């Protein structure tokens, strides 16, 4: 089985469990429980692997008959803890250095599943303590509130503690059994986790798609921002110091940037993400860890991007200003916000102007753009409206164009998202760029039609990225447009004004048609004559 098949199969298995179990619970709630348990399982296995290496032959042999890792009890580490009380402190210190966290044996996944399997009344309490322990004590740097949205005392699980305990027993046993056969390596689990987030986003009755960018679109953004800024033809950069997604959702876009860079043998210094919704923020942190990132390799902040609540982005001293080599974002489309006088004076908006109340699109864009490094690339997904709406948005757009900050405008097909059918575009922005024209790519007709949702295939993605990379001009697809032409259009960027996808009328060559008709007439004559000869031989009336 390839890795892709692995994670898809694992994802489907998990999805079946979800469907089987959720019952009265809605998809959103169930998602939070399920993903938390998966996370615990991942942390546990990863930790046990590291412990095995650390202790070498001192790692106790398991007395368990069970071959599947999910059910090995008591966990070998528990045996070791019991036998080496005085060495525990030193061991945990080592582990913190190696894997950046510690888990007490009784909170390990295998122990939890055993409690669940035996319907032990202590399950609920153990889990609660375990989650609290991971939040507060496991990691050196703070993971406070990581499980804050997982309410184990929720009525949704059951009315009494006993009922809740029983329900959890069932849920955990199901999950454990459903995933026991799957590989425990980071990528499989991480990708399955992603896959599941996508599934939940699609299947949820709410507009939950907001925190999830479909992978294909995320790949386009990622592949664009890792390319050399000045000269994309030179290919991907070997190193990105800092990467930011200021509306990061579950963090999958950031992880995609990391993946694309790694596939091209590059590395990322540190990943930065900001997310306003607390549940999603926790999801993002778990997602990072599940993809094998160390807690020191990323920083996700919970707070409002438009109000700029993140301290590191609020540094007043210009010499200390943080800048990013790559910025990606899929902010909520045309979000209603409350611009005020203070914000009008905000350093992010001051020189460009304030986005209107009805749509924060440009506020998001300007926020990101402010922190873009001179040698950096930013790619952001926005609804088409930003290309042509009037008023304040027109002024912001004009300023960006005059400053030569807009590099490429990519129009995508409609119906690519879970939450909306609205057509969207990708804007690629740069602080300093070589060309003084704007590349327009009209990819709106290149997609795979789906039942509820359209999708992009590899060839569609490649076509977009390559067109950007080599700044190709392709008929009815892409064109470099000079600033004069854009100015003539009143700085309106409506893609169809520059790259029309309508077919040209076919030119008809009358001479050619004439020749064709003559030859057809000749053929008719020849064949009629031939036929008439046969008819004559048979004594039948001829064709006239």
């Amino acid at each position, binding site marked *: 089985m390839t890795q892709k098949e692995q994670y898809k199969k694992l994802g489907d298995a998990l999805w079946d469990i979800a469907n089987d179990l959720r019952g009265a619970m809605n998809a959103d709630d169930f998602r939070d429980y399920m993903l938390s348990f998966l996370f615990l399982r991942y942390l546990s296995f990863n930790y046990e692997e590291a412990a095995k290496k650390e202790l070498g032959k001192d790692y106790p042999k398991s007395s368990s008959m069970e071959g599947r890792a999910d059910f090995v009890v008591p966990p070998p580490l528990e045996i070791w803890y019991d036998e080496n009380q005085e060495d525990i402190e030193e061991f945990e210190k080592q582990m913190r250095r190696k894997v950046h966290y510690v888990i007490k044996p009784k909170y390990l996944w295998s122990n939890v599943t055993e409690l669940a399997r035996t319907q032990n009344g202590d399950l609920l309490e153990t889990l609660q303590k375990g989650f609290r322990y991971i939040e507060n004590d496991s990691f050196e740097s703070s993971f406070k509130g990581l499980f804050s949205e997982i309410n184990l005392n929720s009525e949704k699980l059951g009315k009494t503690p006993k009922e809740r305990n029983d329900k959890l027993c069932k849920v955990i046993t199901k999950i454990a059994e459903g995933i026991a056969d799957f590989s425990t390596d980071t990528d499989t689990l991480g990708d399955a986790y992603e896959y599941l987030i996508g599934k939940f986003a699609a299947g949820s009755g709410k507009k939950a798609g907001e925190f999830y960018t479909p992978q294909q679109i995320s790949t386009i953004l990622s592949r664009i921002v890792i390319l050399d800024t000045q000269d994309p033809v030179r290919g991907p950069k070997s190193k990105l110091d800092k990467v930011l997604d200021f509306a990061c959702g579950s963090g999958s876009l950031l992880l995609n940037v990391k993946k694309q860079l790694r596939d091209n043998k590059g590395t990322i210094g540190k990943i930065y993400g900001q997310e306003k919704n607390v549940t999603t923020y926790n999801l993002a942190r778990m997602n990072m860890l599940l993809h094998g990132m160390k807690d020191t390799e990323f920083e996700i902040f919970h707070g409002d991007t438009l109000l700029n609540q993140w301290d590191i982005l609020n540094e007043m001293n210009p010499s200390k200003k943080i800048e990013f080599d790559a910025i990606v974002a899929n902010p909520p489309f045309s979000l209603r916000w409350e611009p005020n006088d203070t914000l009008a004076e905000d350093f992010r908006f001051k020189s460009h102007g304030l986005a209107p109340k009805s749509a924060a699109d440009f506020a998001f864009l300007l926020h990101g753009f402010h922190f873009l490094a001179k040698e950096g690339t930013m790619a952001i997904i926005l609804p088409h409206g930003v290309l042509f*709406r009037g008023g304040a948005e027109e002024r912001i757009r004009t300023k960006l164009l005059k400053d030569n900050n807009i590099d490429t405008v990519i129009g995508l097909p409609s119906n690519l998202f879970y939450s909306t059918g609205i057509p969207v575009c990708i804007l690629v922005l740069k602080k300093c760029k070589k060309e003084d024209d704007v590349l327009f790519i009209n990819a709106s007709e290149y997609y795979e039609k789906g039942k509820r949702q359209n999708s992009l295939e590899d060839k569609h993605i490649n076509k977009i990225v390559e067109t950007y990379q080599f700044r190709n001009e392709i008929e009815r697809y892409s064109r470099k447009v000079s600033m004069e032409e854009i100015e003539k259009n009143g700085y309106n960027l409506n893609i169809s004004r520059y790259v029309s996808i309508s077919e040209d009328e076919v030119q008809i060559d009358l001479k050619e048609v004439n020749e064709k008709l003559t030859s057809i007439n000749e053929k008719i004559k020849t064949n009629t004559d031939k036929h008439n000869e046969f008819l004559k031989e048979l004594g039948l009336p001829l064709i006239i």
Partner: protein
Amino acid sequence: MTIKKKLYKYKTLKNVAVRLRDDLNNHHFILLYAYNGTGKTRLSMQFKDISKKRKKNPISDTLYYNAYTEDLFHWNNDLENDIQRHLIINKESRFFKGFKELALEEKIFSFLERYADFDFRIDYENWTITFNKGEQANIKVSRGEENIFIWCIFLAITELVIDDDGNGPYNWVKYIYIDDPISSLDDNNAIGVASDLAKLLKKGKDKVKVVISSHHSLFYNVMYNELKKIKHKSHFLHKNGVDGYVLMSTNETPFFHHVALLSELKRASENNMVNTYHFNMLRSILEKTSTFFGYDDFSDCISGVEDEVLFSRALNLLSHGKYSIYQPVIMNEDNKELFDKILTAFLDKYEFQLPEVFA
């Protein structure tokens, strides 16, 4: 009864509309109460036509929500396959001008999730809307759900009107005219809708002027209470037979439909002007009162009074659908006497606070 309120008489609905526009010159809101059949919808059309038909600079300046708005949507039920059910939008309407460029779905949804638990998706190419609940796609929603959905679209657009900075797709809107938005809504939703609307309108009071007309007493009452602190006018619109229309101010008076009805019944009784349809009204009030108290039968709310059995039989017999408000028939003397007795007994028993508005 003393006459405290001024009456304004108008020959035509157009004149009423002119009056309303005049009121809005120095008021933020107008609340209009009128029974069904008075001409509310026609009035709303007259109101918007004034700016459209004037000789100098004809423009439309009114975003209105009424029965016609609901007609902007119609169903394709996929009768052949019964699978691809969707709502078709009349995209030609100015109502939908901001749909595509402003990603309206999220804005609509933030209202919708307060009232309903289904999701929807707009197809901007074909201008259709499909509904789904969880994994069930293309579901057919009930008439009530459909109405609340359309109402949420309207709220989202109203929000855009209020937020407009002079450049948006709804910058032409100066007035909003809302005509009976709550047909097919249950009482809970009517209150919810009214308070959401009031909150929104209060926020936008310096931006747009609003006329709200309704025959729904509960909705009207919630609107009145929410908006009474802001400069407004509230009128009771009457049809004055062939003579045209009457606007009667309802200022500073708590406005309850049933109380208004009771007052009218009392006045009819005192003036000896009882018509046959008044029995219907009385019965309707008794029905509501009984429901309120949780009784099984409407006559329970006059139980214990003298002649209880006779009253209840009379109400049953004499309240018939065939009596039309539009063709009043004077009641015969015996029945009139009976009517007076029942009414008096009812009023004595429950001691309603009757406002003296209805002269």
